[in-house]
């Protein structure tokens, strides 16, 4: 269905203008039902067509240039509807200058349904059903939708698709709608596949590096509001805590055989073995461990038997560490994160002393190979 197209549209927004032009071309091929939705390139490559919502378009041009592309997305419906579970990123968009009051309904006008009474519009636009049918745009997110619709010519092919299917849903029995939807799934998917990097799963997975928020249907997915709110607020907090950042610095003693004094290094300031090695090299200038890979996988290639022997015989020293269990291990075998968890102190050992360790490493690499 249209989801892949949505994802496509959002990806393309992050890309160059050329893509947008290309998408404008494809828009024609979709066969717009609505005359009010023209190609618009708000990156300044073509003239804006005049439109009812000129006031909004002017405003939203500015907001577009200001705001993060990640906030662009397709949401359709009347402006002025409430959107209780709006994501903070959506709020960025919605609070930007757009009034809550309805100005014009882009979606309904695209449908051609707008010609009928206000009531019908209101009831049509509050519906999650047809909107969701057409890619999860929802009447509640109208403020967003207007801006987005105008700012993203790419997704307007959706609108071309939508009016047809939306009309089906209102006028005709729903059976028609499904039938139309299914072939369109194929269409949309092939189009999407042709025009963008196939970075979407069967759904509107935004391949963006920036987490673009999708058009949201009210009350869907069915997650308790407590959980929803908690996820929204904690996403930043936990990211800081887990994994790399950790609570503060991680200083470990580094001793070198024969050196008159020890040093301390903060393991958290490095993200790979290579960095640690270079830093220690600088600190203890006669030391080399640059050969160890930053990860078991690449280390494997490095630690071929011959290479390791050369290393050890060529250089006087090896880098070892004491782990939580009190054992002395060769640095470089385990993934970096695991290493900094378990490392208690470092020791730059004479290679003669390290003979007990080195063969183990070679065996390990043999086993891996």
């Amino acid at each position, binding site marked *: *269905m249209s*989801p892949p197209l949505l994802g496509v549209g959002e990806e393309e927004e992050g890309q160059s203008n050329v893509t947008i032009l290309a998408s404008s071309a494809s828009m024609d091929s979709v066969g717009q039902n609505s005359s009010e939705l023209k190609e618009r390139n708000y990156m300044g490559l073509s003239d804006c067509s005049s439109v009812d919502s000129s006031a909004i378009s002017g405003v939203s041009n500015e907001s577009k240039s200001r705001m993060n592309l990640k906030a662009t997305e397709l949401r359709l419906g009347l402006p002025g*509807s409430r959107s*209780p*579970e709006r994501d903070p990123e959506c709020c960025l968009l919605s609070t930007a200058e757009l009034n809550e009051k309805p100005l014009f309904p882009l979606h309904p006008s695209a449908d051609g349904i707008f010609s009928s009474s206000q*009531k019908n519009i209101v*009831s049509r636009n*509050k519906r*999650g*059903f047809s909107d*969701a*049918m057409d890619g*999860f745009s929802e009447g509640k997110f109208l403020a967003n939708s207007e801006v987005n619709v105008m700012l993203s010519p790419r997704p307007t092919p959706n609108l071309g698709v939508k009016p047809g299917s939306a009309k089906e849903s209102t006028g005709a*029995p*729903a*059976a028609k*709608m*499904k039938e139309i*939807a*299914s072939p369109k*799934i*194929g269409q949309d998917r092939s189009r999407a596949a042709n025009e963008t990097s196939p970075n979407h*799963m*069967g*759904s*509107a*997975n*935004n391949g963006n590096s920036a987490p*673009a*928020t*999708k058009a949201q*249907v*009210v*009350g*869907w*997915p*069915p*997650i*308790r*509001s*407590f*959980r*929803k*709110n*908690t*996820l929204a607020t*904690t*996403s930043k*907090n*936990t*990211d800081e*805590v*887990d*994994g790399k950042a*950790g*609570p*503060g610095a*991680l200083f470990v003693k580094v001793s070198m055989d024969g050196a008159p004094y020890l040093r301390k290094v903060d393991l958290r300031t490095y993200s790979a073995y290579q960095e640690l090695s270079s830093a220690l090299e600088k600190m203890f200038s006669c030391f080399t461990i640059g050969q160890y890979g930053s990860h078991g996988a690449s280390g494997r290639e490095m630690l071929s038997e011959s290479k390791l022997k050369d290393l050890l015989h060529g250089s006087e020293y090896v880098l070892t560490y004491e782990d939580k269990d009190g054992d002395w291990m060769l640095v470089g075998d385990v993934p970096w994160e695991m290493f900094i*968890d378990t490392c*208690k102190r470092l020791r730059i050992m004479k290679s003669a002393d390290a003979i007990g360790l080195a063969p183990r490493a070679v065996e390990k690499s043999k086993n891996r190979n």
Partner: protein
Amino acid sequence: MTFFPEEVLEHIFSFLPSHQHRNSISLVSKTWFKVERLSRHRVFVGNCYALTPQRLIARFPRVRALTLKGKPHVADFNSVSPHWGCFVFPWIVALAQNCPSLQEIKLKRMVVSDNSLDLLSRSFPNFNSLVLVGCNGFTTDGLAAIASNCRLLEVLDLQENEVQEGISQWLSCFPESCTSLVSLNFASLKGQVDLTALEKLVARCPNLRSLRLNRTVPLDMLQKILVRAPQLVDLGIGSYVQQTRSESYVKLCNSVLNCKSVQNLSGFWEVFPPCLPAIYPVCWNLTSLNLSYARGIRGLHLNRLIRQCQKLQRLWILDCIGDMGLEVVANTCKDLQELRVFPSDPYNAISSVTEGGLVAISIGCPKLHSLLYFCLQMTNAALITIAKNCPNFTYFRLCILNPKMPDHITLQPLDEGFGAIVQSCKKLRRLSLSGFLTDKVFLYIGMYAEQLEMLSVAFAGKGDKGMLYVLNGCRNLRKLEIRDSPFDDAALLADVVKYERMRFLWISSCEVTLGGCKALAKKVPMLNVEIINEEDQMEENPDDSMKVEKMYLYRTLDGPRKDAPDFVWAL
């Protein structure tokens, strides 16, 4: 049988396990009815508007433990305005006047004000248990009243409520004389608690079995608590962040070793994963693990943790566990009975779990009977396999995050997959559908899901036959919620008698019109038909052909409710 003295009857009835059984036997004769009602101490009300408090008290004057459920299930997802109703205050008032021996109250999805909590705390001298699930409307001041005034409090269990911060430090309000706490769950509260008061409280409550901390309680306090309460069976960890080299952490490792009884573990609102090994010693005995708020535990750390938990029966997890992690679960947790996989990023439709993970679980965990699974994609083949592997499902809730997704390989509707589930799982009581579905799935449900009690439908169906298949086929259906599906007045009005056997029917964003609802209301006077008309969708004199946004239909003994706000129209 009618010659038994009433005391004997009462004694016999006391062995009946559930209120459903008691409901049945009270229909046998007038004597039985009388004996039963006077001896029923535990009362369950599935819909607080099904009857007035006065009627409840009239029938069960000796109620000691009351469970009240309020808003319909969809209210959890913001589909119902917070002002819609389900206020507990009138209930507390009525109970305070007539049932002073009330001991326990459990409320779900109700509006609870600080006044209600205050009145509650002062009206029932034997009150010992308050459980609030998914409620809102109160602040920590209400909790302070409970803490201060309920001398014999044993259970204060707050699950996923929206609690505002008040002025009081509620935890400090537990008096020194309070030593009776058995269960304290404040994990979902956002505010700070006085940590010293918390430690002292834990120290003086020797019966404490269940303690769930919120995210403001740091790891070193957790360690102190574990020292004071090594007998804990249910532990909810707040913040779990510390340097693994620190003295705090080492102490924690030692304290955990003394906690030999922990069976439920939850929380981890903040976590530094390298600290996880400290709790490994309790994992071997865990039967329930809730990591659904632990966004910081993932990847290798998560898999390692799961591998420690071989006795697990219930697992609540985020979808960042991925299919690989689910395979670890499948290989480790052979006794798994309940699995819930929540979306960590639902609005960006990013998920690491697919149908593959669920299939792996079904292979490794044949005892699985309760499932809630959020994912991005599904196939009929996977569902058919799952149905074959796990025929014991009682709860099967599948939520494909994007509406109306078909089988992502064949692009067919998911009718066959869900059909296989209902056909294979004869004990299925609750089913939630999602994905692209036609009327066929309802035909299957009507044909096979004989035990079905609750059905949730969204974005499904082709015409109005679907509802008819379900209503005709599922004799035990009590709760039906339908949204964004093409059901119209014809379906709604086809068999109205069935609605009297149901607790509620919820229809939103379908093809049902105002006229249809009016006709329905005329046909079923014993039921309340409410139209929820938020955002002024309908003007003063709306046309009958207008589509109704939300309709909530429920049976009641006491007619339309008096506390409906303006935007709710009772027909």
